[in-house]
């Protein structure tokens, strides 16, 4: 037995790096996986709230109210949606997720008075039935897209990009293409399904403006229209989204989750959520559209602290994907033995693409997906959303705010120079915002 504690690991060629080179050499295929970026990047953890003190007073927890409601889509839509909490469930496709998981997301979100979102592959009756507010994604593949479901939706989200892969399309591997998924997508069973990276019938913001006008015409100007972009050239993307006529802009940072993307794409394309929020808010302010066009931010939101910080930086709401799946039961220790059989462990599982998810969430296997009880899982999601909301209110009250939207950049300080520069808030203990003159 070698005493490994003496061995020196290379920071450049770490064990996961060595393993990946070996895997690539053996298979000749890039690594496709789910989850989001796994490396360390500047995030909301690098910000803190200043709280109230001499110059401002806090609100009493439990007794003094702190509002959490948000209205989305009142720029042009006749029927904007009114949510009780500023935390929504992000678009995740039926196909990537089991029907039970989709239903559970709908149940959990509805219990908390918030919205859930379809995904690539269309709308299922399970999720429509269980979702009080359902946002219908309009994606490049247009799998399962039809005007009847469009009219059943409470809002429409035109997906231009996703944080995990701005500029990338999708791939649902053959093992997840059950007869039902295939039927909804008009494709043969069991084959790999590529989702296009560009929309088939428009290119560029001028076309998108015409496309949005068409969607409004088809739905009689009732539905709020969201535009979702992966965080990249966020200032310009948000500016163009507003120009194209969005009611709501969704900005998804690079650490945002995915069901199946090349690892190289997940880890190396796009910018983190933190700088993206600031760039988006700057764009909205410059257009005098802040709070008129709502901003939803996603990518790595885990706690009420993340929610509160995103709101303080100027977002109107946040959206969660990975955390919602974890709340349903993803990566839970109870499945450790089965994770081990798949060569992984609870807490590391990211093979959402592969269809053998022991938790019954990212799978179409009838036996595996039957393990997820949509009622119990929905309840867990509602509990989790409730905790996020309470935590957000706790922080808002500490800063003396009677509504979570009254949080402001002024309430924040940064712990690192990077975060100060990216978020545009002063480095803690100084007045210094790097890059601001």
């Amino acid at each position, binding site marked *: 037995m070698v005493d490994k504690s003496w061995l020196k690991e290379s920071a450049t060629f770490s064990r996961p790096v060595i393993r990946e080179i070996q895997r690539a050499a053996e*298979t*000749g*295929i890039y690594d496709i996986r789910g989850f989001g970026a796994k490396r360390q990047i500047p995030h909301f953890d690098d910000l803190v709230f200043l709280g109230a003190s001499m110059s401002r007073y806090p609100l009493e927890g439990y007794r003094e109210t702190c509002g959490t409601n948000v209205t989305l889509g009142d720029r042009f839509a006749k029927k904007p949606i009114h949510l009780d909490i500023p935390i929504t469930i992000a678009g995740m496709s039926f196909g990537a997720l089991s029907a039970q998981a989709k239903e559970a997301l709908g149940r959990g979100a509805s219990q908390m008075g918030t919205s859930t979102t379809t995904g690539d592959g269309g709308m299922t009756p399970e999720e429509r039935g269980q979702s009080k507010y359902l946002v219908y994604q309009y994606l490049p*593949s*247009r799998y399962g*897209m*039809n*005007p*009847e479901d*469009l009219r059943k939706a409470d809002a429409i989200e035109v997906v231009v990009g996703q944080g995990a892969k701005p500029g990338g399309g999708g*791939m649902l*591997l*053959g093992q997840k293409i059950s007869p039902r998924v295939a039927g909804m*997508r*008009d*494709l*043969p069973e069991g*084959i*790999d399904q*590529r989702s*296009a990276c560009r929309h*088939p*019938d*428009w290119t560029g913001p001028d*076309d998108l403006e*015409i*496309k949005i*006008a*068409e969607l409004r*015409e*088809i*739905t*009689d*100007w009732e539905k709020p229209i969201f535009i979702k972009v992966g965080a990249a050239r966020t200032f310009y993307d948000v500016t163009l989204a507003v120009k194209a006529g969005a009611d709501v802009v969704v900005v998804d940072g690079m650490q945002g989750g995915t069901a199946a993307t090349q690892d190289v794409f997940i880890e190396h394309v796009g910018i983190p959520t933190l700088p993206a929020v600031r760039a988006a808010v700057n764009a909205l302010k410059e257009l005098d559209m802040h709070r008129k066009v709502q901003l939803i931010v996603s990518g790595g939101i885990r706690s009420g602290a993340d929610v509160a910080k995103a709101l303080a930086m100027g977002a109107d709401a946040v959206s969660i994907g990975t955390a919602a799946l974890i709340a349903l039961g993803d990566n839970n220790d109870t499945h450790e033995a089965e994770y081990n059989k798949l060569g992984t462990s609870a807490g590391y599982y990211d093979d959402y693409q592969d269809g053998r998810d022991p938790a019954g969430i990212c799978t179409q296997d009838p036996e595996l997906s039957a393990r997820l009880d949509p009622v119990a899982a929905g309840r867990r999601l509602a509990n989790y959303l409730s905790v996020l909301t309470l935590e957000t209110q706790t922080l808002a009250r500490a800063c003396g705010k009677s509504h979570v939207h009254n949080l402001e950049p002024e309430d924040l300080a940064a712990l690192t120079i990077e975060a100060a520069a990216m978020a545009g808030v002063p480095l803690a203990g100084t007045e210094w915002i790097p890059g601001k003159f």
Partner: protein
Amino acid sequence: MNTFDLSDNPVRELNQHLHGAVTGKVVVSNAGGKHSVAVGATGAHEVEINGNVGYYCAGMNCDANIQVNGHAGPGLAENMMSGRVHVSGNASQYCAATAHGGLVVIDGDASSRCGISMKGVDIVVKGSVGHMSAFMAQKGHLVVCGDAGEALGDSIYEAQLYVGGKVESLGADCEEKEMRAEHKETLQSLLDAAGINDMTVDDFKRYGSARKLYHFNIDNASSY
């Protein structure tokens, strides 16, 4: 009969009417290149549009029979579900993109990406189509009486293509296929539906998927 003069009636009123329960004859004049003309129709309206239309005319159509006496801009009949759309002139790019059903007939030429991601629609073009037509085409039939531009049927799934003239080049995973009796029958019914009687099924060649890209294979990486 309902009439809509788009030079003074907004497109909104026309579309609102087409979403209503009352079906019947609708005549649209002075289309003037406007976008989103007759989109989202629900029901068996008989729509006659006079003049050229802009983007997305007849988009997401369900059941209506829409006749355009003029040319059509990009995205004609995009995501159509059922019904019939007939254009007397030419159609611009992405004609019948992602359409699930119904019949689209173009008397003139269609531009690039005709039938992109088509999901069950039948398209008959009496003239020629541009490059990348039937890209990622999933289901349905595209009949081109004239020529097809570069990369026809690139990354095609199960859609079937019939071309009377020259094909400049085939896209990845698209190949010429044998024309069997059942294909001739399908083609004949499409020619009949489009009112084409100066060509016969023997004037056409059939193209479809070689199905080599259906499962990721590293040896095909250059085709992806």
